[in-house]
């Protein structure tokens, strides 16, 4: 997409992309440290992919950015505003695509998408309808508008969750494991959707994922979180030849039947 198209898309969304600054962020749950002194910056319009093993604190970091968790120490700034202040959600439009979708099970797909503009009175019912149908069209979900979430497949739920976020015309889009539990083709589709949304709407994106292909394919920068610490931060090309042995093992795990990991850990 050329610069003028991006600018027009940005103008259509009504607000510019925002940056995120994480400063010495630490979080404990009942005395157990989950995040330890994380410092990083995400630039406006960037796709930042956060990788790391399960339980390394990726989703917790994402919840801090959107203000669902309060830091034990340090702070997160979104466009210069403290993310833990509820008023920030009124100043900056942020959308989080939850790992399990977090769709409203009692509503149809259409009503799930229309909830945000209706509640914030962002137009007439026909304008909202146009907006919702456009979002459904972008994600090839036109036929699912009348269905309830229980009738959808895992991939469709993820796409509905992205479409719901898209209707918000966010300045900052956060994705929690958007390709988990999906087949390779659907994973590639979701990666393409994330990249296309950035191109069309110039939205800042933070993607938490285990998916190496997604990181290599769409990320501007990749951070790797291990044991609550940021152990690597750089362009996706760094993932091809990691210098840290822990990162290398995480990205290119070797299946060794003679000396399996669970026995090494037990020993």
């Amino acid at each position, binding site marked *: 997409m050329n610069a003028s198209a991006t600018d027009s898309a940005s103008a259509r969304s009504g607000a510019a992309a925002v940056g995120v600054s994480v400063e010495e962020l630490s979080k404990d749950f009942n005395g157990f440290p989950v995040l330890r002194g994380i410092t990083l910056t995400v630039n406006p319009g960037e796709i930042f992919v956060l990788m790391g093993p399960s339980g390394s604190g990726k989703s917790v970091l994402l919840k801090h950015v959107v203000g669902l968790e309060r830091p034990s120490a340090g702070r997160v700034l979104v466009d210069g505003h403290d993310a833990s202040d509820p008023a920030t*959600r009124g100043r900056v439009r942020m959308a*989080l695509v*939850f790992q399990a979708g*977090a769709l409203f099970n009692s509503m149809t797909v259409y009503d799930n998408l229309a909830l*945000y503009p209706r*509640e914030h009175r962002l137009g007439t019912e026909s304008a909202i309808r146009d907006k919702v149908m456009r979002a459904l069209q972008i994600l090839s979900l036109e036929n699912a508008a009348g269905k309830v979430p229980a009738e959808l497949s895992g991939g469709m739920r993820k796409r509905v969750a992205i479409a719901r976020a898209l209707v918000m015309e966010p300045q900052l889009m956060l994705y929690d494991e958007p390709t988990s539990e999906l087949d390779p083709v659907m994973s590639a589709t979701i990666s393409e959707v994330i990249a296309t949304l950035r191109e069309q709407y110039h939205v800042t994106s933070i993607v938490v994922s285990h998916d190496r292909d997604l990181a290599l394919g769409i990320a501007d920068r990749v951070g790797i979180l291990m044991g609550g610490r940021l152990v690597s931060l750089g362009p996706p090309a760094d993932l091809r030849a990691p210098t840290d042995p822990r990162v290398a093992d995480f990205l290119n795990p070797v299946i060794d039947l003679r000396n399996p990991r669970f026995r090494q850990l037990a020993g």
Partner: protein
Amino acid sequence: MAAETANAPEENESILTAAPKQVVRPFVRVLEGIGSCLRLLFEAARHIPTLPRQFGRFIEQCYLIGYTTLPIVAILSFFIGSVLALQSGYAAANIGPKQFIGLLVGLSMARELGPVMAAVLLAGRVGSAIAAELASMKVYQEIDALETMNIPPARMLVLPRLAAVLAMMPVLTIMSDLVGWFGGAIVAKYTHFISIEPASYFATMRQYMDFSDVLNGLVKAEIFGFAVVLVCCNIGLNTRGGPREIGASVTRGVVTSLILILVLDYFVTKALM
């Protein structure tokens, strides 16, 4: 041995400090619950101006709280009125003043049993459903999704329910009173050791009761219903964990509501005397 001796004072200390903690903890929890409910109430009250545009949700909640609870309230109240007439008739058979059965059933239903039964059924039927729905929304991150959308759950999920219960409790209570009185009248007429004509039964009721007795019951019902819905909303929204905690929240919601109804009943009755 030396180590054991050295540890002994620490153990004693921990027992001494742990015991008061065990005693204090339930009180702290109760105070935390009250604080949390009040915070939710103020948060919901802040959004009262949005109520007119939430009219659809208000009507939906009126249907769930009022219309669907009405049959069970009617059935129970009929039999409560019947049993009241039966028991008082049995007692009066030995003493004599059977004509006061109408007054006894009338006053009992209007001032006490009508509002209490309506609130108890509300806790069992509606309170449990509210706690389950909101707890499920919390566990499956729907509440988090609302917050990220800058849609306060207190506005969308709590306020319409509180408004609906205020609108529906008088309806449920009046229905409970009327059906209870009617049940008592039938039993009073057709039970051989009572045999009072409905005209006589209702005449004593009219003679010795006035609207303030019914109003007294309506005030109680409003307070009980409001407390039940607020407590169940609060418990649902504060659920943490998985599916097991949804069940635990439902149980906690119903049990807390029932205790609250009886505790409030004493204080409100005393205040209205």
